[in-house]
């Protein structure tokens, strides 16, 4: 039996990869160690968040599953950063840890061309630096043209609680023992990373009355551009806010040496944005308290996730720590917090297509590439799936640009700068974030998706319909004038707004900061929904800023168009600074644009490179990749 595509791993990256290659008509097998863990959420029970919520929308625009399934599986959803500007708004939902994987498995089972198999992959079958399949722990061999590795935190995973260290993956699952060694033999540069997760608390042992409620939004939302909201807005689950206190801090500081991190039991590098509570205390000594959140894991079991309290302390200390918190005096810990160490590859060794530079037809996605987060993983899985398919179809690969998607920023950062800690997406990483908004993910990406055939005709039609509505609405706003009747004047007065001139078009009015699309429907009946109005409002209100950003993009675009041939020999280029030469040699950027983003490559090196290319390759500038 031979497959077109073998996907190793059934986490968020593996799901999207396998779904996409199968959707695109390629015979696909997804191999997971445990079918029950497909789409599992071993850490926080939420999907989305700042920047991440926008990634979920991008995944949806490109034909991925995450947004759709999240829409079906959450018990609370809200829009973050509503007041801070349109570019940084982002959805986050509390996803049910039972429902989400269940709905995901169902979606995969309904997908044509996709087989799911349990098994543990321990080696790759390689011939002439090209992958030909995988072999399992049982020595069974599975052949395939393309292999996509999405091993998550399972490569040589170690779970640490205090001085206790166990050779296992999350939830006490089995780990892969040999795959990372075998990758190393092939020339992969293996790094050790670390992450962690906080304790889980039994719901019935929590006194919620001592905590502050955190509710969902009063407005209906969906991640997906193709789905209608199906949840009950009034029946959303609450989360709770609580704080650490002096006593908690004393317990932690007195037991610091017992933690896996400070006791010297951990070798992996952890992310700065996900520090353990002991890290937070050590690094920010002056802070009197730290915020924590309690979030339900599922409606089907009574475990709550204590966000902000990730730790690698031994169990007895964890119990003391939890009991010091207000409302958790009698709390029962159902799962102790742990730190987990795992092997990852150096992302500088992969191409922007997510194919390995070392082994042809081998793709990697998710935490194996050094990232952190469900959304970051899913988006890479999707891109790996699309590019694997395109390769099988003999088509040009899909490389999203930094001005097109957060996914583009993510992958470009990985393959250009590499990462020394698990990489989390932040809005601050996107220099063109004003263009990369949650509201326009479909406008940015659906056309691209249609070209690479990663969406259905219906999904493309939804996008076309939105475009048409935007056009109509724009015309409507430009031609509809506000007639200042007494009634309207009175309404305006309520909102403290004065309009002097009669008969101004709504379009003109929207240029004023105080006149918003939330307000307009209260004054005049508008035949367009909020999504359409908001889109146009953003274009009107922030035109100046948008244009500035677009200008910046255009300035850089030319550099990205200049491709560097794959076979370029950097030792032949005179005058390159030695640091630049070494970095270019290692990263082998595909374009002048990418080269210019490498730290240590100076503008003068770029000039030299451009001149060399012109000289060597002249007018027939070859395309790379």
């Amino acid at each position, binding site marked *: 039996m031979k497959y077109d595509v073998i996907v190793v791993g059934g986490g968020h990256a593996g799901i999207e990869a396998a779904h996409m290659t199968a959707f695109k008509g390629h015979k696909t097998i997804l191999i997971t160690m445990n079918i029950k863990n497909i789409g599992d959420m071993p*850490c926080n029970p939420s999907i989305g968040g*700042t920047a991440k919520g926008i990634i979920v929308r991008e995944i949806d625009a490109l034909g991925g599953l995450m947004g759709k399934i999240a829409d079906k599986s959450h018990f609370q959803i809200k829009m*973050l*950063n509503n*007041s*801070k*500007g*349109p570019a*940084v708004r982002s959805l986050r939902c509390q996803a049910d840890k039972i429902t989400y994987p269940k709905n995901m498995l169902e979606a995969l089972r309904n997908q044509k061309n996709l087989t799911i198999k349990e098994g543990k992959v321990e080696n790759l079958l390689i011939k002439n630096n090209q992958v030909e399949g995988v072999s399992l722990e049982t020595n069974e061999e599975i052949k395939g043209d393309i292999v996509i590795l999405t091993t998550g935190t399972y490569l040589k995973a170690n779970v640490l609680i205090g001085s206790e260290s166990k050779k296992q993956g999350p939830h006490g699952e089995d780990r892969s023992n040999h795959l990372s060694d075998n990758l190393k033999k092939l020339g992969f540069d293996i790094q050790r990373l670390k992450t962690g*997760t*906080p304790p889980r608390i039994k719901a019935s042992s929590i006194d919620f009355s001592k905590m502050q409620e*955190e509710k969902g939004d009063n407005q209906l939302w969906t991640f997906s551009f193709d789905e209608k909201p199906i949840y009950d807005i009034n029946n959303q689950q609450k989360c709770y*806010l609580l*704080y650490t206190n002096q006593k908690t801090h004393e317990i932690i500081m007195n037991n610091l040496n017992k933690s896996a991190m400070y006791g010297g039991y951990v070798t992996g590098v952890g992310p*700065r*944005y*996900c*520090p353990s509570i002991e890290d*937070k205390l050590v690094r*920010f000594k002056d*802070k009197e*308290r*730290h*915020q924590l*959140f309690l979030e339900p894991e599922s409606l089907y079991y009574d475990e709550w996730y204590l*966000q*902000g309290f*990730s730790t690698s302390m031994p169990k007895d200390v964890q119990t003391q720590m939890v009991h010091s918190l207000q409302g958790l005096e009698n709390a029962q810990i159902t799962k102790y917090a742990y730190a987990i160490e795992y092997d990852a590859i150096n992302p500088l060794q992969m191409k922007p297509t997510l194919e390995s530079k070392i082994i042809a037809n081998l793709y990697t996605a998710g935490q194996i590439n050094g990232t952190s987060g469900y959304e970051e993983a899913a988006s890479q899985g999707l891109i790996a799936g699309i590019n694997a398919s395109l390769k099988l179809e003999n088509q040009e690969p899909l490389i999203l640009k930094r001005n097109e998607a957060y996914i583009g920023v993510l992958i470009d950062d990985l393959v250009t*700068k590499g990462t020394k800690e698990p990489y989390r997406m*932040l*809005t*601050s*990483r996107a220099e063109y*974030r*004003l263009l990369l908004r949650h509201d326009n993910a479909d406008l940015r990406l659906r056309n691209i998706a249609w070209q690479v055939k990663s969406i259905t005709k219906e999904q493309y039609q939804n996008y076309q319909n939105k475009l048409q509505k935007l056009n109509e609405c724009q015309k409507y706003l430009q031609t509809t004038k506000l007639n200042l009747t007494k009634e309207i004047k009175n309404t305006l007065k309520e909102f403290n707004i004065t309009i002097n001139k009669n008969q101004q078009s709504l379009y003109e009015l929207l240029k004023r*900061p*105080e006149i918003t699309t939330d307000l307009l429907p209260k004054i005049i009946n508008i035949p367009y929904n909020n999504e359409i109005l908001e889109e146009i409002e953003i274009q009107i209100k*922030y035109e100046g*800023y948008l244009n500035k*950003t677009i200008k910046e993009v*255009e*300035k850089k675009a*030319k550099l990205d168009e200049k491709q560097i041939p794959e076979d370029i020999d950097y030792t032949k280029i*005179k*005058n*390159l*600074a*030695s640091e630049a030469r070494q970095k270019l040699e290692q990263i082998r950027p595909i374009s002048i644009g990418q080269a210019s*983003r490498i*730290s240590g490559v*100076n*503008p*003068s*090196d770029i*000039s*030299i490179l*451009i*001149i060399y290319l*012109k*000289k060597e390759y002249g007018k027939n500038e070859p395309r790379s990749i």
Partner: protein
Amino acid sequence: MEDTIAAIATNNIGIGAINIIRISGNEALKIIQKIFSNKKISQAKSHTIHYGYIMDNDQKIDEVLVTIMKAPKTYTKEDVVEINCHGGFEVTRKILSLILKQNARLAEKGEFTKRAFLNGRINLLEAEAVEDLLESSTSNQSTLAMNHLTGKTTELINSLRDQMAALLANIEVNIDYPEYIDELVITKANITPVLTSIKTKLEQIIKEAQNGQIIKNGLKVAIIGKPNVGKSSLLNALLEEEKAIVTDISGTTRDVIEGSIIYQGIIINFLDTAGIRKTTDKVEKIGVEKSKTIMNQADLIILVLNQNEKLTTEEEELIKNIGNKKAIIFLNKQDLPTKIENLSTNLPIILGSAKIKKGIEELKDNIISQFNLQNIENKNLTYLTNIRQISLAKEALQLINQAINANKKDIPIDMVSIDIKNAWECLGKIIGQYYEEELIDNIFSRFCLGK
């Protein structure tokens, strides 16, 4: 689209009688149109030369010849404009600054040639020479930038950048971690004071940069007035007093200097205003037009009036024309009876007599005080001295002003932060200490967040 670049194309600026500024790129014609007296210049035929003035709005900066060369038959194969200017080094720099304020940036070393090669204008052999010119590592821009700066300035810029980084990191944290309500939430109310203080300091830096140039090159003072008011005797009085040092500041200016003195450590150069002084016009006209040109070249003007005569209309017009320019009125011939009347001006007036050397000290003190130079203790201080640095500082100031304005309106904080971030990057480029991940590092070193 390639951007438009400009630079002074002549070597050893200042030594020759003419300097050439070259502009190349799509915007070249638009730019010259904006700053040239002939507003139809962009429609001129290719490869033609045009006479006129470089204008800063209504102000004449210099009398020039402009060569228009349209793509593709040019050195770079792009639209090229060359300006032959006559006004000496300072004026050349001023014109270049004007161009850079439009949509052009300063060309890097060898960049015109680089474009010529990339656009297929010059051959391989010539390109080799360019490659050597671009020799890396040693000519790293940031090290170059560093060489021009020392202690105090860098410190000042660093502290400004620190303030901005703290503000930005805080804004970013509010955006990326909205659930952390314990962190200070940045609002318009607490941004404005920080921005205003940054603005004030930036203005200070820019002002001192201008002082820095004065300290390096000296002040240029023009003595103007109608014939026979005593301009020559005033000049002689000024020069004699200080045992006039003779003008040999070549390499810095081509302006013809009548003489120079050093007063309180500052070089004061008196421009040759012979053109006005020696006018033989029978109706005793001052030559207002000519005066304007000279006024533009000078840092400060001394207008000499004879208090023994009534004001003429030309003199009144001249006073009006001084506008915002730094100037002093020297009311000469105090040894004779007063006949002048209706002298209304906000300019400082010194009563004196060149003949009996009265008011000369006072005049010199006044010159120095107009530039606030008496307070500068260490005259060897290094300031932002090159055009690149100064234009970056000005750009930063402009961005901060935009941010302040946006903040006054209902613009969301995310947008406001764009301008602050760009300003912060401008300052980073001045001191050559800027890296992409800097802001992210800042966020995590300043704030405590995470699961």
